[in-house]
């Protein structure tokens, strides 16, 4: 008996030792060398704080990559922006473009040359100086890297476009091409970079300047031997996080897939406070990965996390815990997120030789009056009141009212009006037979509407939409399916009739919507990637969007984008429903909190501080 006990306690000790050994890998983060404050250090406009606090958050879903060359999803993008930065950024208070790693810039009178002056004395997190070479490397060697034929060593030429194929053919790389052409980048001296554009590109300062800069001294050899995607990958993040060198306020400390991401403060960050203390104040950011947005919201309500974006319908019950858990919910007003229904207008034929949608249905969907009638029949205020518990606003156009600079308030609106909807349908040749609506050929009007099943607000909006259609005598079959299937059906197989989805984000510049609005765009939901515009109004939108890309005068750009919104409202290819309000909860212990509608609550994360916990 005694020997047994001894053995057990011995085993327990050994297990403890093992656990201990596992949880503490031989310190991968020995202290990093700390360089002196850069001479061009930016002074943060906030009262000085105190170092050392830990910031805890959750995120629904895992990251896919930490490589900005191939990052396409929001979660990865958010993680990347913690440790990498660009030359310019958007001021979260005024919406203007302000300096980041570039302290100033000049634009040539013809609008083709941008000369950026970089901050002097800035170093990478490992202490290596940041120079113009890093910028040139990021653009010319990383984004514009060409595929080479392994046998000849020459670049591979795409037979369709006649241009060399990119080695990383991802959305970020294409995004930095202007009408398919590259931007010329050259270093004038160690801290001056000049970008020469092939043609005028209005949002270059924002999109080009905002591009995250990569470390040349780390990645150069991997570009040369073709191992870049292995050298800066999820595996690097798991096993050698220290190799992910950055210029951002934080550095990756550890990453466990499906569990958590930990960032620590960058001791060499280039911003300081008015007392000369280096930012950021936060010592570590611990982000736990959880199943879905609801679980994330619950964790915040239980006081487990410091900050959380709250779903509109969860605000009421979470706010009840505000006192006991000591947090404040910031109401940021209407968000940039939109929700809409669209009909499949793709007249194409599937590989099996059948049309994507039956011709008689395509005829309904293509009829502007049908879409307008549907729009009149949607009770937007009812959705706001019922589904969102009043925490949303009706949405009438492509741009959310939040985006004040670009929102056109005077587009055609479709107030809830069943009489007008019926009149429009009658005009388009539809007629009631009994309780059901029939078209001129006698086909009963019915269609299937799909939306993703893991978003309860969307499924509820879909049931409300179906009931609104029932009032017109249209039968709607609801399909709640998983998100990836929806994406496949809307962008590859086109095997669907109608779909309800939403867009988040909301770009600060209208040209970011070109993939959605232009008829050849991959995200042109109702009929993507058209070889040439199928309708006149789509051709007009294409022209206007091209103008917005070329034009430098803000007034002309706005006028063009206002017209785009008017056409969208008149044609209703996307039938907009509502935009949810935005709510962010933050624990009260955090100081220097200054929420703005544009930047949210965490835009000045590097200046937030709390007493160490």
């Amino acid at each position, binding site marked *: 008996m005694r020997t047994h006990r001894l053995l057990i306690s011995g085993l327990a000790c050994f297990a403890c030792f093992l656990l201990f050994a596992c949880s503490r890998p031989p310190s991968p983060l020995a202290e990093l060398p700390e360089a002196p404050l850069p001479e061009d250090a930016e002074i943060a406009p906030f009262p000085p704080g105190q170092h050392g606090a830990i910031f805890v958050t959750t995120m629904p879903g895992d990251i896919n990559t930490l490589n900005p060359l191939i990052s396409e999803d929001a979660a990865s993008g958010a993680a990347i922006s913690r440790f990498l930065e660009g030359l310019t950024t958007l001021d979260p208070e005024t919406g203007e473009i302000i300096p980041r790693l570039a302290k100033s810039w000049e634009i040539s009178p013809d609008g083709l040359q941008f000369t950026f002056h970089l901050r002097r004395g800035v170093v990478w997190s490992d202490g290596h100086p940041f120079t113009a070479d890093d910028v040139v490397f990021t653009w010319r060697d990383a984004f514009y890297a060409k595929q080479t034929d392994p046998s000849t060593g020459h670049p591979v030429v795409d037979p369709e476009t006649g241009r060399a194929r990119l080695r990383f053919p991802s959305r970020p790389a294409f995004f930095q091409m202007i009408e398919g052409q590259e931007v010329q980048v050259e270093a004038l001296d160690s801290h001056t970079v000049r970008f020469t554009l092939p043609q005028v590109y209005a949002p270059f300062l924002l999109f080009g300047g905002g591009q995250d800069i990569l470390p040349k001294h780390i990645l150069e050899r991997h570009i040369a031997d073709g191992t870049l995607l292995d050298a800066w990958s999820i595996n690097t993040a798991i096993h050698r996080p220290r190799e992910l060198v950055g210029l951002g306020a934080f550095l990756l400390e550890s990453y466990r897939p499906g569990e958590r991401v930990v960032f620590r403060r960058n001791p060499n960050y280039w911003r300081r406070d008015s007392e000369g203390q280096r930012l950021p104040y936060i010592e570590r950011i611990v982000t736990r990965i959880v199943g879905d947005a609801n679980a994330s919201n619950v964790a915040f309500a239980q006081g487990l996390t410091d900050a959380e974006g709250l779903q509109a319908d969860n605000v009421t*019950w979470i706010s009840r815990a505000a006192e006991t858990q000591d947090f404040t919910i910031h109401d940021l007003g209407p968000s940039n997120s939109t929700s809409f229904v669209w009909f499949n207008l793709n007249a194409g034929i599937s590989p099996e030789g059948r049309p994507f949608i039956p011709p008689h249905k395509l005829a309904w969907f293509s009829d502007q009056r049908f879409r307008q009638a549907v729009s009149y029949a949607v009770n937007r205020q009812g959705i706001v*009141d019922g589904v969102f518990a009043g925490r949303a606003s009706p949405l009438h156009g492509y741009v959310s009212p939040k985006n004040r600079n670009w929102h056109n308030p005077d587009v055609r609106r479709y107030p809830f009006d069943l009489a007008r909807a019926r009149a429009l349908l009658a005009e388009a040749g539809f007629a009631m037979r009994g309780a059901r609506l029939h078209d001129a050929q006698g086909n009963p009007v019915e269609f299937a509407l799909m939306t993703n*099943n893991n978003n309860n607000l969307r499924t509820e909006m879909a049931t*409300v939409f179906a*009931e609104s259609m029932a009032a017109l005598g249209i039968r709607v079959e*609801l399909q709640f399916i998983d998100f990836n299937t929806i994406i496949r059906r809307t962008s590859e197989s086109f095997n669907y009739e109608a779909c309800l989805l939403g867009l988040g984000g909301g770009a600060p510049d209208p040209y970011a919507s070109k993939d959605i609005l232009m008829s050849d765009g991959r995200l042109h939901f109702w009929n993507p990637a058209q070889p040439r515009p199928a309708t006149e109004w789509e051709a007009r939108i294409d022209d206007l969007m091209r103008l917005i890309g070329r034009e430098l005068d803000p007034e002309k750009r706005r006028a063009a984008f206002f017209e785009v919104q008017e056409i969208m409202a008149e044609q209703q290819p996307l039938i907009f429903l509502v935009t949810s309000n935005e709510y962010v909860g933050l624990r009260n212990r955090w100081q220097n909190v200054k929420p703005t509608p544009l930047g949210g609550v965490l835009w000045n994360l590097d200046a937030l501080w709390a007493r160490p916990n």
Partner: protein
Amino acid sequence: MKSLFREVLRRRLGQISLFTLLALYLTALFAGFLATQPVNQQNLDATYHPPTRITWHDGGLAVRAYRLVDRSGPHYEVVPDQYHRVRLFAPGFDYKLLGLVPLKRHLLQAESPEARLYLLGSDSTGRCVFSRLVYGSRVSLTIGLIGITITLFLGLIVGGLSGYFGGKIDFFAMRGVEFLMAVPSLYLLLALRSVLAPRFSSDQMFIVIVIILSLIGWAGAARVLRGMSLSLRRRQFVLAAESMGQSPLRILRLHILPNLASYLLVAATLSIPGYILGEAALSFLGLGIAEPASSWGLMLSQAQNIKIFMLNFWWLLTPGAAIFVTVIAFNLLGDVLRDVVDPRMKTQ
């Protein structure tokens, strides 16, 4: 058969379970009459409305008036001293009694259109939970009956024949049964459901689910029935019938089937809850009955949102209670039936 019924009714548990089930099935049969609102009628001004209290006021039935105090909750309050008259057997929306007779009369209808008659509150789009529960009972209660019919029919044919004939037929039939039992049913169900989904509308889906559930479920019953018919086969009255030259079909029908009947009855009652729970689980996973149709599992899956627990919208969980009551009633009835037909296996 008549004496069996009398025996069941002689027992307290038998009475309770039988009358509960009778009430439930009558509810399903007269759903249109009992429902106070059309199954899909939404009211976006009355989402998550609490159950309205019915009181006796001014010489008649009445509901209290409610007022929306806080839309963001949403939170409702009773308006003091304000009532809306409710009438029994009053005209309301159109429906078809038993699917045939067009009618307008309902058990309970509010007189004024402003009155909110939500016997069990309303859901996220302001639909009456009570009416949905009543209509949903049609799906949830018939699914078991249809399912068990298919299961026992297949089980009886395969099990009975292989037990009676034995030999090669028995061998191959039982290997087939084992093959079916080895199929991981949940995954098969999920796969079949996603393959078939685009081809069926919501109401056809209901039938498809029953068929899938019972096509997977008959193997167990076939095994037991095969064992029973195997042992009956050796009994003297079967051997006697055989030696008199009766045809196998006649023997099966006249001598073996009556001896299996008691088992079939018990097995059926005890396995119906499995189908009800199966439908609930599938709908809960979003693979079963789809909107705008209604079933108890679907209603439960719509109540799994965290805010429903946090804001105490308990009435959205009533489909769970309905499933609970139905399953318990079937199990009790099954127990009582077994006691009656097989006194040696008494549970008490």
